[in-house]
């Protein structure tokens, strides 16, 4: 379970990114974070990844109190989270297998297990047989599939996607969302997005942010700012 309890985040220049934000996300829940640019979506993701710490409030993720300034188990925390970026962040000098396996290599998993896990993950995103292909040979949609494969490979409990369809055409965006649907129920999925079509169609929980505050938290909501 993820719990944000009265979280405030002020940046050094004084701008408030999150203003007394509280919410709970249950295990294996599917949640959209929506809101205009600067609403605080990315700040929530950065807080979850412990790239930044809150100015006030507590954030718990499973057993971890990640708002604690003395929290040192950042590596263990991040090994529970798979992340998908808008710009894919695929390493061009590594082939698809190497890119996906990075998630597992950092945990010290044996090579034989890595091979099996990567194969399963690529199969799930529809990229079987492309293990040895390099990123330059893939389309944007395929690159995002690789990024999803890298995020879901292994036993990461949480999948966070920051504008995963931001650089994709509508058709490809839907293909990507189908992959998220396949994973639904097996992992906690948090997607920050501007894509109203997808949010409106899927009818999942929607947390709407504006100026650093939660203005709506709807069980089966739509893209309604």
């Amino acid at each position, binding site marked *: 379970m993820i719990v944000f309890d009265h979280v405030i985040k002020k940046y050094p220049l004084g701008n408030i990114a999150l203003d007394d934000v509280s919410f709970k996300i249950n295990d294996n829940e599917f949640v959209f974070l929506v809101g205009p640019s600067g609403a605080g979506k990315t700040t929530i993701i950065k807080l979850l990844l412990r*790239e930044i710490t809150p100015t006030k409030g507590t954030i718990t993720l499973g057993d971890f109190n990640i708002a604690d300034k003395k929290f040192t188990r950042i*590596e*263990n925390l*991040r090994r529970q*989270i798979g*992340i998908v970026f808008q710009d894919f*962040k695929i390493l061009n000098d590594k082939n698809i297998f190497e890119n996906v396996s*990075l998630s597992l290599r*950092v*945990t010290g998993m044996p090579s034989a297990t890595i091979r099996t896990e990567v194969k399963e993950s690529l199969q799930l995103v529809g990229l079987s047989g492309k293990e040895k292909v390099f990123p330059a040979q893939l389309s944007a949609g395929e690159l995002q599939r690789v990024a999803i494969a890298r995020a879901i490979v292994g036993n990461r409990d949480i999948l966070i996607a920051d504008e995963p369809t931001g650089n994709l055409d509508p058709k490809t965006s839907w293909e990507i969302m189908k992959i998220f649907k396949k994973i639904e129920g097996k992992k906690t999925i948090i997607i920050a997005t501007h894509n109203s079509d997808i949010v409106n169609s899927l009818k999942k929980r929607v947390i709407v942010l504006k100026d650093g505050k939660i203005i709506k938290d709807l069980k089966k909501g739509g893209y309604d700012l």
Partner: protein
Amino acid sequence: MIEALTSIRRTPYQSLSGFLVLFLTLFLSTGIFIILTFLYGLLGYVETRPQVTVYFKTDTSESDIFKVREQLISSGKVLSIKYVNKQEAFKVYQQFTKDNPLLQQMVSADILPASLEIYAKQPEFLPQIAEFLGKQPGVDEVQFQKDIVSRLLTLTSILRKTSLVLFGFLILMSILVLITITLFKIALKKDEIELLRLLGASNFYIQKPFLLEGFLFGLFSSLTSFLILIGGLFYFYPFLTSYLRGIPALSLNLPHYSLQVWPLNIIFLSVTLVFSLFFGVGIAFISVLISTGRYFK
């Protein structure tokens, strides 16, 4: 390991400059190490020879000689003194001229002088001992290896001080160059490092390829400089043999161990290789740790 090799291949000029600067440092350092061990060995050898030999006139009585000996012992500057009387001197003479019966027949024990062979506690005491002996009655001649010892002492001292300055400069230069190269390589892999951190990689996991690369630089530059230096030593072996003729062995006396330097032997060469490897890998590791430490900070 593959990642380290790939990184070297992808940044050939930076890698080559890192290798060359480390090679130069190790080549000079190991070269100076070898020269210093030889000089210390030579100094040790000279110090084990009778450092001052005083010959008395043939009519000097043994009691006068013993008085001189007692005065030397009480000065506190003498490690040991060996008295060689006329009979013993004659035996030495006979041994020395055993191939020439004519020379043996011409000399008897009476005409040979008694002598004292003196070993000083420190080479610096030699001139003072010689000066003291020169003023004693009954003394015919004082021989001591003033020139050799003082030259060796001066040379060793200069070389030691110069080496320290040179070592310091070379180490600093190598570390700075390697830090710059590593920071450049980190900058090239910035995106990858950021991604690895978000995926939960430990600092050591991120440092590992850089450390391995540093290890390879250290290893290959050490081995190359060692092989070239040893090649040089063997090339000059006939010259060294001729130059050090008459000296059976040179040893570097350490507090609990005596390392034989000459004739060249496997232990000395192994110690030199270990010194070079330790130094090379150490410099590379320190540089990588400083540069990655800066980045993680």
